[in-house]
């Protein structure tokens, strides 16, 4: 940063030419031109060694009539150890979308932070919200820029869900490490416990499910994932750590409070007493 207070700032303290250049409403493109070292995918990497870093795990999402629910467990693991018990992995990207992250936690959190600024930056410069498809594509291009890191084992695979104001419905998008962006129908899950969560959602989710039942289905899917995947954290009744759960509908993003979650999760735990698989 050459001793100046803001990256890319001129010596005289006036705004450098790059700031005044007309054009892009993208924050990432702007950062790439003035301070590329701030972008996760633009840092030089030492060759060879594969790092061991904390990993985030399971995220589930399911649509309901009028919106979509996204939930994530709270555990981050490093090898066979629990790195963090109460990590947040579901973030509001803006008022009408959320990102859930799986993969290398540090880079994923940095990517989400960058993505949040990207959307807000566009909103302020253009004076309007980006279309949902546009938001999904912006996230894809950010993951694509991260391919170099992914090839060194520092993979980030998010799941994106948003409320489409034009079509008046919720939508779910999944990604692969190369930045491929896929629109998912009905429900989806990513992360180490996704295999079990998907199986669970297949049995619990039905078209036309109400919001409360969709929330319950998502929480149960996380419960099932934690049951069989050691990297997914189950409900921690002792420490009162509950999954993160966001509901998206036409009024925007709403995160359930700890009290709301406690009630719902404790109901599931009670129902599963003596019936651990939740057979019905």
């Amino acid at each position: 940063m050459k001793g100046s207070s803001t990256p890319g700032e001129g010596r005289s303290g006036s705004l450098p030419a790059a700031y005044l250049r007309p054009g892009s409403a993208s924050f990432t493109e702007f950062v790439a031109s003035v301070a590329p070292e701030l972008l996760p995918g633009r840092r030089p990497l030492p060759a060879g060694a594969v790092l061991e870093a904390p990993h985030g795990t399971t995220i589930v999402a399911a649509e309901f009539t009028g919106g979509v629910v996204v939930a994530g467990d709270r555990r981050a693991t490093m090898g066979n150890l629990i790195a963090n018990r109460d990590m947040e992995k579901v973030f509001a990207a803006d008022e009408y979308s959320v990102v859930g992250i799986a993969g290398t936690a540090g880079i994923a959190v940095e990517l989400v932070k960058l993505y949040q600024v990207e959307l807000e930056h566009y909103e302020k410069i253009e004076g309007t919200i980006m279309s949902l498809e546009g938001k999904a594509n912006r996230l894809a291009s950010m993951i694509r820029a991260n391919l170099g890191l992914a090839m060194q084992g520092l993979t980030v695979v998010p799941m994106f869900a948003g409320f489409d104001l034009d079509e008046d419905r919720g939508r779910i998008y999944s990604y692969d490490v190369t930045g491929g962006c896929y629109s998912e129908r009905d429900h989806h899950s990513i992360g180490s416990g996704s295999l079990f969560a998907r199986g669970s959602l297949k049995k619990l989710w039905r078209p036309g499910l109400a919001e409360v039942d969709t929330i319950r289905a998502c929480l149960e899917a996380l419960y099932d994932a934690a049951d069989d995947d050691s990297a997914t954290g189950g409900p921690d009744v002792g420490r009162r750590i509950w999954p993160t759960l966001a509901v998206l509908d036409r009024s925007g993003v709403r995160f359930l409070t700890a009290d709301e979650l406690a009630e719902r999760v404790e109901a599931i735990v009670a129902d599963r007493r003596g019936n651990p698989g939740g057979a019905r």
Partner: protein
Amino acid sequence: MSMPFYVSPEQLMKDKADYARKGIARGRSVIVLQYDRGIAFVAENPQSLRKISEIYDRIAFAAVGMYYEFENLRVAGIRYADLRGYSYDRSDVSARGLANAYAQTLGTVFTQEPKPYEIELCVAEVGHTADRDQIYRLTYDGSVADQHGFVVMGGASGAAEERLKAGWRDGMPLGDALVLAVTALAADPAGGEARALSPEQLEVAVLDRHRPRRTFRRIVGPLLADLLNTDSPIAHAPETDEGVPGHHDTLSGEPST
């Protein structure tokens, strides 16, 4: 080889300043004023090319003069604030830093470019209490003034400023503050009859100090009409956002659908 005529530096600067001032006076005024819950921005601007804009969580921007010149600075300000907030923390973005960067930029353009910017800017930051509000007024030559209470820029600002000086007091409710600003904008500087300004001709926004995170809200539609109507009981903007689908930065007072 032709020799340029000698022009004294004093004359050169004076000519540039006169040129910029004339350009700024041609447009309509913008008023920025404090009210009990924050800072309000009022412009007579019926078109969609905005004069008032959000910069960051607690910072907003208002400008008069050449649109493309201040639009360029507005975008630069958003870039400055977002980059600073991203590489440090959201609480590290201040109006003072931005005002300094703008002042340097305006000053450099004024002294080094053949044509000065024909703009005047206001950068305002809403504090957690009224005495920590900051309002900076920046002129075409890069001079900065830290203002208390209110700022009038552009157009026939002298007459409007007199009206605000007479009418503004600390802790005005939003309704009263907007009525005062609109009266000042509508007054005829020549002393004739005041024009009637309808809500559709106005661009109004606030920085509401009691909101979490992004405090900038535009006020439009029935809510603006109610606030400007002295007979209406509504004197404050709602404290919560509306549930209507769309951009949450707008308060219209319309029932949600």
